[in-house]
């Protein structure tokens, strides 16, 4: 079993490992924030601070043979599914150690062994692709499922509508997860969408739907499990709306000054890290000391990851010309 598959297995089996992965994501994103602010990485980036419970909760329920399509805001999901921090950070830095060898970048993470399709930088781009993966499962009669994760803003793009309708009429084993973090770029969702509970849109397709508390990993696991079970057993698609909040700005440059006063603070009270800590302390699985140790170990780990990625070679010029077409073959 590959190291990354082992990482995946860990979050599937153990609540403390899930918590650790959430801490990893948090630490990772904060490192990236610093690196970008310092100007030591170019391009752009989209952090998922505050959305760790959704990523890890999802990864803990799915099998590695299930398929996930996600977006440019994909670091957390990639790490949760098992990609190594080196594979993710390396890609963001454009180094050969990155999961795409440095030619893809921050918005395009993938690892098929773990079921992660290349994340798409086009709003709605990954949704029909996930439905297509589900179509292949249906035709081959496996019981794998496909999951499309997308933002609240993405519920206004045509591909959302077309994909949900297609998935419903074909009864595909696909789960649509709307990560409603309240903002699409700099616009609060209510400015672009005349509806608060986005999952209600599934009624247009007679598709089962519900919302869940995306700040609570337990709620995520429960909801996703319900939808996954339905899909695996031939019951078709589900639209889930996870209510989360984007703790950071939209992308590197954004300081999110457009937020109403007090909104961030209100949501931070339900910081998914805190929520998980409380539950694990209550169950006796963790205590303050263990928590402090996990956090400081993770800091060290991620600092090492940064160093490793900085030391990783730049891609060769030749790599620009590779992987465009499949090397030719003749006949079947």
């Amino acid at each position, binding site marked *: 079993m590959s190291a990354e598959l082992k990482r995946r297995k860990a979050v599937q089996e153990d609540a403390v490992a899930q918590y650790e992965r959430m801490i990893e994501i948090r630490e990772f994103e904060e490192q990236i924030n610093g690196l970008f602010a310092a100007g030591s990485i170019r391009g752009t980036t989209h952090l998922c601070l505050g959305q760790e419970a959704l990523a890890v909760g999802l990864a803990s329920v799915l099998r590695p043979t299930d398929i996930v399509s996600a977006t440019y805001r994909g670091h957390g999901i990639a790490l949760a599914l098992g990609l190594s921090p080196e594979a993710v950070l390396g890609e963001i830095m454009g180094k050969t150690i990155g999961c795409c060898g440095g030619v893809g970048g921050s918005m395009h993470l993938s690892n098929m062994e773990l079921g992660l399709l290349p994340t798409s930088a086009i709003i709605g781009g990954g949704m029909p692709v996930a439905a*297509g993966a589900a179509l292949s499962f249906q035709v081959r009669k496996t019981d794998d499922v496909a999951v499309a994760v997308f933002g609240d803003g993405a519920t206004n793009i045509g591909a959302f509508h077309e994909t949900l309708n297609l998935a419903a009429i074909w009864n595909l084993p696909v789960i649509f997860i709307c990560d409603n973090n309240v903002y699409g770029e700099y616009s609060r969702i209510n400015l672009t969408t005349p509806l608060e509970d986005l999952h209600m849109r599934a009624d247009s397709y007679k598709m089962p739907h519900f919302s869940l508390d995306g700040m609570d990993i337990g709620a995520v696991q429960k909801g996703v499990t319900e939808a996954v079970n339905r899909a695996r057993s031939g019951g078709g698609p589900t639209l889930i709306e996870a209510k989360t909040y984007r703790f950071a700005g939209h992308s590197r440059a954004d300081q999110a000054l457009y937020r109403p006063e007090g909104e961030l603070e209100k949501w931070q009270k339900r910081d998914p890290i805190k929520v998980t800590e409380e539950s694990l302390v209550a169950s006796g699985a963790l205590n303050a000391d263990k928590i402090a140790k996990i956090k400081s170990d993770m800091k060290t780990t991620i600092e090492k990851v940064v160093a490793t990625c900085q030391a990783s070679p730049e891609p060769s010029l030749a790599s620009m010309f590779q992987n*465009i077409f499949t090397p030719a073959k003749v006949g079947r």
Partner: protein
Amino acid sequence: MGTTTPMRFRQAIVSALADEMRADSTVMLFGEDVAEAEGPFKTSEGLLTEFGPLRIRDTPISEMGFTGAAVGAAIMGMKPVVEIMFMEFLGVALDQLVTEAAKMRYLSNGKLSVPMVVRASVGSGLGFGCQHSQTLENWVAATPGLKVVCPSDAQAAYSLMRASIQDPDPVMILEPRILYAERGDVDTSLVLPIGKARVLRKGSDITVVALGQMVNVSRSAIEKSGLDVELIDLATVVPWDRETVLTSVKKTGRLVVVEEAPKSGGWGSEIVAAATSELFSQLKGAPFRITTPDVPVPYSGVLEARFVPTADDVARQLTESLKSGTTPKSWWELEGLK
């Protein structure tokens, strides 16, 4: 082996689809009205009956949705063939083909292939008006990661369809709608690889490169002209067969491209530009394009018949250019229309 069967162009498509589906259980077909109704142009006749509703599917009117579904299915190991009824409809779905499918291999560091085929009917001549009659190669032509082919007869329709389905990368097939009813002889064992042009007629005076319905027009034009022309059916627009075309131009020293796209910005400019850049000193006369004018496709039958290059007009331009070595005027320049 080597025996041919007469069939219509659209039947050649059906046969190729059926033969591929028999040979490979991962091949499937979907699009609007391709299953129950057997295709708006009857290019899927009998397929639902033979292969069943799991593999042959009607879709809602959702080109972005089902083209994207083909991308996902292809990544997971299926070989989906998607029908876009008229090429213009790709205007609501281009993202999935060009920005997703064509980049998946690159964006997965070579881990993924996307063996999907998108078929679309293209072209003018049937009175469908300006939103249903274009060829629009330009929408897909400059896309590293995407292959684009265009058959000009039943044999090519059959062989290129099979090659496209077998190809591990996304392939777009432009099917000249006006040819669906045309008859031809098909040798089902004949392989036409993607990326290989077809030299349909050997000649030494001029090299003519044509595509789709312009191949027939060019053939008639050559007969009318009585010139010794080498006729090349480009067959694959991307990646086009530089070797065959350039070898021919080296020999003849003259290049004329006959295309259905509008004068400005069509695929033919690539051929003319590349040949000129590479073979400049070997050219005996100005290479040029014979195209449609820079106008929307007109509806009126009278106008539409003049819109596309005619055999007479192509013959005239070939003859004139051979005499003068310069680029002849288009018919609309001659008539003072633009």
